[in-house]
């Protein structure tokens, strides 16, 4: 009698998928594969397979909730289609009105982090104090120990929230910037030209 009423087949992987759904809907931060396996009390490989089931079920254009792999873990988010409705209900202070100075500072911390305010000021050529304070308040960067050099300035790194806001699975997803280096030769030539004109 019970078996005839069952809507979901008693596939053990499906049972695990339901457990994972429950864990993910309760969590407020992305859960790593290890977190999920430990909480579900199951094998990480089976959890990975079950996650695929959940991801199929909660995909764009299929559901209002979407499973995504972000910031070193798995998390539910709203479907992109529903962004307008969500925006009417919720503010997003982390990414609203990020200034150019804040974005440059964020980029330096993301690529070179952990790094200190003097490090950032050296690259940007201006003091980074307000940009750093701004990013700290938004929760996009956090303190990460102190410099070993003179003064022991506080160093900063990006947070998991940064990865989440920018939709990155990890910092290694940031694009390589080596190709921009080709411009260094061009800049040098221009500087030399200016120097020659002055000495002439």
């Amino acid at each position, binding site marked *: 009698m019970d078996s005839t009423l069952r809507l979901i087949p008693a596939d053990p992987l499906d049972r695990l998928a339901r457990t994972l759904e429950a864990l993910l809907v*309760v*969590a*407020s*931060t992305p859960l790593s594969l290890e977190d999920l396996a430990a909480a579900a009390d199951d094998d990480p490989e089976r959890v990975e397979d079950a996650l695929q089931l959940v991801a199929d079920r909660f995909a764009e254009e299929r559901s209002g909730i979407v499973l*995504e792999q972000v910031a070193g873990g798995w*998390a*539910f*988010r*709203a479907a*992109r289609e*529903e*962004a307008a409705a*969500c*925006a009417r209900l*919720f503010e*997003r202070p*982390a*990414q609203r009105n*990020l200034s*150019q100075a804040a*974005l*440059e500072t*964020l*980029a*330096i911390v*993301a*690529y070179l982090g952990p790094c200190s305010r*003097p490090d950032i*000021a*050296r*690259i*940007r*050529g201006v003091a980074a104090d307000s940009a750093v304070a701004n990013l700290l308040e938004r929760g996009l960067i956090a303190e990460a120990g102190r410099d070993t050099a*003179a*003064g*022991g*300035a506080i160093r900063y790194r990006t947070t998991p*929230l940064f990865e*989440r*806001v*920018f*939709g990155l699975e990890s910092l290694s997803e*940031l*694009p390589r*910037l080596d190709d*921009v*280096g080709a*411009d*260094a030769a061009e*800049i*040098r030539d221009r*500087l*030399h030209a200016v*120097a020659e004109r002055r000495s002439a």
Partner: protein
Amino acid sequence: MIVRELELDLDAFEGPFDLLLALVLKEELELRDVDLAGIVTAFLERLAEREELDLEACGEFLVLIAALLELKARALFPDEEAELAELDPEEAAEELARRLAEYRRAKEAATWLRERLAVEGDRFFRLGPAPLAPKVETPLAPQDPEGLAKVLRLLAQDPPAVSLSHMALRFPPVSHFLDRFRALLRRRTKFDFESEVAEMTRLEQASAFLALLELRRAGELSIEQAAPFAPIRVSRLTKENTVEQERTAAWTARSA
């Protein structure tokens, strides 16, 4: 109130404020080791002790502490101008080009982030602090009541008395030496303390000395020593020096 004489008690420095300034200016004290907030606190404490607000002292202090703060802040930054000034024009151009290229990379990365934000901006997700993991309970292994009782019985037993025998210092009785010195003085009028106790152990010597002081107090003998560490001469009290002895005893009693 004179700001220069403000006494400081910091980790890196202890003394008056003007000495701290002198040491910092002579570069004998690393400013980065000095807790400037501690100086401010010391000053405010001194200020609070006074009823009146000493504006002149406050002004002087502000100027000095501001100068120190500026020195300390500057020390945190590498001296870029000096670095560049030391380079010849060729090298300076290289260095500037390197820095500009570095900045350009940062700018490029910022542009990428901005574009990424535009694309990913329609992702809404739940935000909140990471929840606390439940406390792990560590259950005790099941125990046999008899076994527990046995262990408890062991604990209930009186511990064996601790032996103090190794700590005992057996002092020879002072009375023993009292009798001995009295007998000695019946036979002789004078004797030398050192030669009398030369054969004894240190503890016996100490007891003998106590006996000597005891007899001296009772007025049975007098003690003489020409100089510190010189031999101690002990003599039986005769009639005339008894009077002398009594006077001294009376004087001692008064002063005590």
